[in-house]
């Protein structure tokens, strides 16, 4: 009886699991199959199995038709730069908010919380105008000069996303729960506020740094609307908008699946590697946010 119940539970879980896994597996498997095979396999379990004549043709086509490696490189640069800067900048503000007494602290905190509800889509349009008017500073002929606009660059995709109110809030919540005694002991030991941050708080806050790094990574890797607006040329284009190339003319689903699989690879790799961390951190972030 007990065993039967268990079997039933597993069967049900498998069914639901199939529903949730199918599109992802289908995408990956199809990327290795010629167009006709994709359609032929679609209606059977073969759709999510690596069976039949597997080929790398789709990938070859993707690499030929698009600068996917360039996009990939751009995405890696943008994502890593933003995440690293963000960890630093956001945790520093959270540190002053949660562990130092200063006038105006409360108002800044309230502002940070209020900013959490503004979705990126709500400000992209004015942001676009803003950055189109911001000049960049660069080297030219041995001197500092102001150059054109920010558009079509990597930094236009990095800098606006470094400071993030949600991540500041996550750091704030974590830091707030660390006993103040540590700071005071360190203060008596002669540490400056920055040294307290660097030597005491940061080493004690591994979990929240991991959480924010993961969430920020996801956010940045999957950027879509902003690069479409701010980056017209190929040079600075990241992976997600790049997929548009494969629509239009005549759609080759095999190639699309290959591209999609290729750009999903890093997220999946990170996800599977840090799976436990991922899940617990997102749950924590959600429940508190």
């Amino acid at each position, binding site marked *: 009886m007990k065993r039967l119940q268990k079997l039933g539970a597993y069967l049900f879980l498998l069914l639901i699991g199939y529903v949730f896994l199918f599109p992802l597996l289908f995408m990956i498997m199809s990327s290795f199959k010629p167009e006709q095979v994709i359609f032929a396999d679609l209606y059977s379990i073969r759709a999510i199995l690596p069976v039949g004549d597997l080929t790398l043709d789709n990938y070859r086509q993707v690499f030929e038709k698009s600068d996917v490696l360039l996009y990939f490189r751009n995405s890696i640069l943008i994502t890593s730069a933003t995440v690293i800067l963000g960890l630093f900048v956001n945790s520093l503000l959270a540190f002053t908010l949660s562990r130092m007494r200063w006038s105006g602290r409360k108002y800044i905190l309230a502002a940070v919380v209020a900013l959490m509800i503004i979705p990126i889509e709500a400000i992209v349009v004015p942001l676009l105008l803003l950055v189109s008017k911001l000049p960049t500073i660069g080297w030219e002929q041995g001197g500092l000069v102001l150059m054109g606009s920010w558009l079509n660059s990597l930094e236009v995709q990095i800098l606006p996303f470094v400071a993030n109110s949600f991540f500041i809030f996550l750091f704030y919540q974590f830091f707030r729960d660390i006993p103040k005694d540590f700071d*005071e002991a360190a203060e*008596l030991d*002669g540490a400056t506020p920055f040294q307290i941050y660097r030597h005491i708080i940061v080493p*004690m806050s591994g979990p929240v740094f991991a959480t924010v790094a993961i969430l920020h990574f996801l956010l940045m890797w999957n950027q879509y609307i902003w690069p479409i607006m701010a980056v017209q040329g190929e040079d600075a284009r990241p992976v997600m908008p790049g997929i548009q190339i494969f629509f239009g003319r005549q759609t080759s689903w095999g190639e699309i699946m290959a591209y999609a699989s290729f750009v999903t690879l890093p997220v999946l790799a990170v996800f599977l590697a840090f799976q436990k961390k991922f899940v617990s951190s997102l749950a924590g972030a959600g429940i508190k946010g």
Partner: protein
Amino acid sequence: MADVKLTKVVKRYGDVETIHGIDLDIKDGEFVVFVGPSGCGKSTLLRMVAGLEEITEGELHIDNECVTSVAASRRGVAMVFQSYALYPHMTVRENMGFGLKMAKTDKVEIKRRVDESAKILQLEPLLDRKPKALSGGQRQRVAIGRTIVRNPKVFLFDEPLSNLDAELRVQMRVEIAKLHSQLKNTMIYVTHDQVEAMTMADKIVVLRGGNIEQVGSPIELYLNPVNEFVAGFIGSPRMNFFDCDVIAQTDDSLTLKLPCGEVCQLAADVSHSPGMTRVKLGIRPEHLKEDQSGEIRIGVDVDVVEHLGGSTYVYARYSGEHELIIQTGGLSPVRRGDHCDFSFNLDQCHLFDCNGLTLRAAKPVPLHTQAPVAQALSG
């Protein structure tokens, strides 16, 4: 010479004043205990000495130098926190050396000083462990070791033993006392536990509501409390108090009517408070005798009897409603529900006026009969 001198020290949080102008002199090498009920401002006062709280008004001198607005790390103080505040990601060695590292001390020198301090507290085998791998008592010792490394002029302790179980607490109490006799530094120790205060202090500072009630040695406070609060706070179990009507008053004596109706006369210098109608009489539990040898006899109804082995606490009611605690010898025959007589001597009574100020303290008992004091101290 690391004297500590507080002059008219005031602490305000916004509009709320929590420390009301404290004057205090602590001599070099003294072990001073701040004691008082929870919320009376002990920690605040200590933290102002440490430099962790700003001093709103007044001055603080350490070693004859004004350090009122000097940063905490430059005052020459070190502090043991109630939670120990050992950095969990550092080994014991790193914890102990952190202050020196911040001061950019040479690595070899850090090692030397950490090793020295570890030796004093027998911490050598623990140096490479993380705090998580230590027992409560060991953590406590590391927390103290960390302060020793810094070789401060003044050691500060904020309820350092309150996270330990009873047995360890007694053990650490002795260790800290030993440490003091060994290092001979000035130490300021905060506790709400009067037993700790009595056993460890050279000098006790009793605080209440942000004011000093009394400063003195443990025995002074025990024998000569300046008011009802100190009398009740120092000594365990608590002193018993009864309201008594004043029947007659001269400059140096009072005639009282006890709640049981008995009338007695006590010597007291009451020339400054004429015309009193009521006073409070205080008698310590250890001064109530099971036999009838005392001058005043009282009959009580016994509610609860606690046998501690070495002594017995009797919780009783005296003439109906007055609660009373009596401490008697180890094998008292008194049982719950008994009605029995106790007695006491008038010269062991304290008298307090209607404001709680002491009118008269108990006469010091000759030293060889001071057993109850020793008991109170070790209790």
